[in-house]
């Protein structure tokens, strides 16, 4: 399995970091690396993740992270937007 890096902002509320790391591991990913830096009002996290098996999809993981409150992916997703509030996603058309 290849490693991919997620870039995220997390707030300082109790449990935010634990919530993020727990979700990644529960959903079937190894965390191979992590950096955490202070960004004033919040924190920036880079997580290197690798699926435990071929069935683990980082696209699905990203969407599961999007559902967390206080955690925001910064790779292409508008800040502060959550699943329940999000604008419609682009539909996926399988081959």
């Amino acid at each position: 399995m290849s490693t991919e890096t997620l870039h995220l902002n997390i707030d300082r509320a109790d449990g935010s970091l634990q919530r993020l790391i727990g979700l990644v591991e529960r959903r079937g990913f190894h965390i191979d690396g992590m950096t955490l830096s202070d960004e004033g009002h919040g924190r920036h996290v880079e997580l290197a993740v690798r699926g435990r098996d071929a069935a683990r999809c980082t696209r699905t993981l990203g969407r599961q992270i999007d559902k967390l409150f206080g955690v925001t992916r910064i790779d292409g997703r508008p800040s502060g937007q959550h699943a329940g509030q999000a604008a419609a996603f682009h539909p996926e058309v399988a081959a």
Partner: protein
Amino acid sequence: MTASAARIPEPAAAPKSGARLLVSTLERLGVEVVFGYPGGAIMPVYDALAGSKLRHILVRHEQAAAFAADAYARRSGKVGVCMATSGPGATNLITGIANAMMDSIPIVCITGNVAQGVMGTDAFQEIDILGVTLPIVKHSILVRDPADVPAAVEEAFHIAASGRPGPVLIDLPKDVQVGQTSEDFGFHIPNAVTPIDHDAIARAAEMIRAAERPLIYVGGGVKIGRATEQLRTFADQTGIPSISTLNALGTIPTDAPGFQGMLGMHGTRAANEAVQEADLLIVFGARFDDRATGKLAEFAPHARVVHFDIDASEIGKLRETHVAVTGEIAPGIEALSAHLSGTPLAIDPWMIRCDTRVRRTAFRYEDAPGEGVYAPALLKAISEAAGDDFVAACDVGQHQMWAAQHCRFAKPEAHITSGGLGAMGFGLPAGIGAKLSDPDATVVVVAGDGGFMMNVQELATLRRYGVAVKVLLLDNSSLGLVRQWQELFFDGNYSEIDLSDNPDFVKVAEAFGVEAFRISRREEVQAGIARLLAADGPCLAHVIIDPRENVWPLVPPGKNNAEMMEGA
């Protein structure tokens, strides 16, 4: 607090404690009923409850508070509320919180905790409940300042109910409960409107028009998304046959034309065979749960998939999706119906095939084996006798599957069951929550002897509040579903399933002050049903059933849904 939220200062008021702010905020949000159990670390909240407008239901175990709040939410469509003290009170909520998470039910759980100054010191009844529950909540908030209490509560309610609903935990340290503040901040999150993706809808409509064997796959997200009427209209207008997950039963009425029944492990032959033959699945608010799909790689092998869901992370999670429509389901279905109106689908041969199979494979009751009470026939009869106001609050086990297979459900709120978690002990407290949310409903707890004993203490709650729940206790003196699997898949090696030393359940109920009687023979069933339903208050019918009776059909583990086993 979320980035998009805004704290709205309200007029200055006299100083209040965090506990009083909690109670006044719950009142302001329209909460009427709270299920809970007091203890040391939440005593300031209970002090503030006295004299409030809130009706507190004192359960006899915190797990029952969470289950009752869950069922209250399922039946009413409102957010259910439960509360407990720190430590063991909080940990006793956990199974109920997980149940709400698995079935996407909006509940807010309020826990007391030790004062912040002693957090992390292993203080008496200190548990990091926020940390313990992280995997099983939609969100959780540890409140550190009394002034933040109103905002935290309002945020919790908003998160619990919005988008894909779920449980939210609010942890209140004792110093926050007793701390005084004159600040009182409201909280406002603007309601986001999800635009309908008309391009995706048009592609979905195109696929439906092109399909020869389309099938509507109804999940629990339809009722949660209040899209029942839209879905029923869509099914009526198009004539497309439909199937349902366990949690969605009642969304399409059991006796509606084209309805094939529940799919999956204990689904109907008609539903499972229709899935395997379909060339298009139109999925509304379902997550391809393994109990529904059987062997995933062989599930619906000929079907393309159109998937409507509010939760984008469910799209493509387990099954490839060809057209995805994320967002609120009700407007999505309305838009789809509009695209398809005026153009009848050319699916008559498929409709006839499905209807014929439904009739040919329907359950039969008249030739039930033996002379004892046949539970499937009893469940069918009581649901028909209770009529459209019937609500089944099911426990977990064989009886749960029989209820799903054989009861008549006219409304989506008529079937309350622990679907995702499968939590034994759910039935009785769920019945209490459902009845308190809708006193006019005929709420029947369908329980087995194993699960009933897990929350039997709630008979005291029935008695205390006169909650007129009818308990149908199907007693096979064993853990029936486990016994069935041991019979079929473990060479009949029966291990720890014997419950023949159960207490006398009639005497137990009477000891709690609840009317009770026994049904032992088939000829007693009709009179027993009439007596149970006619009882003014809570009543328990103890029904002796054959311990060898199994649930059929059954898709064995690791098999596809076409490989159903049938009983004798």
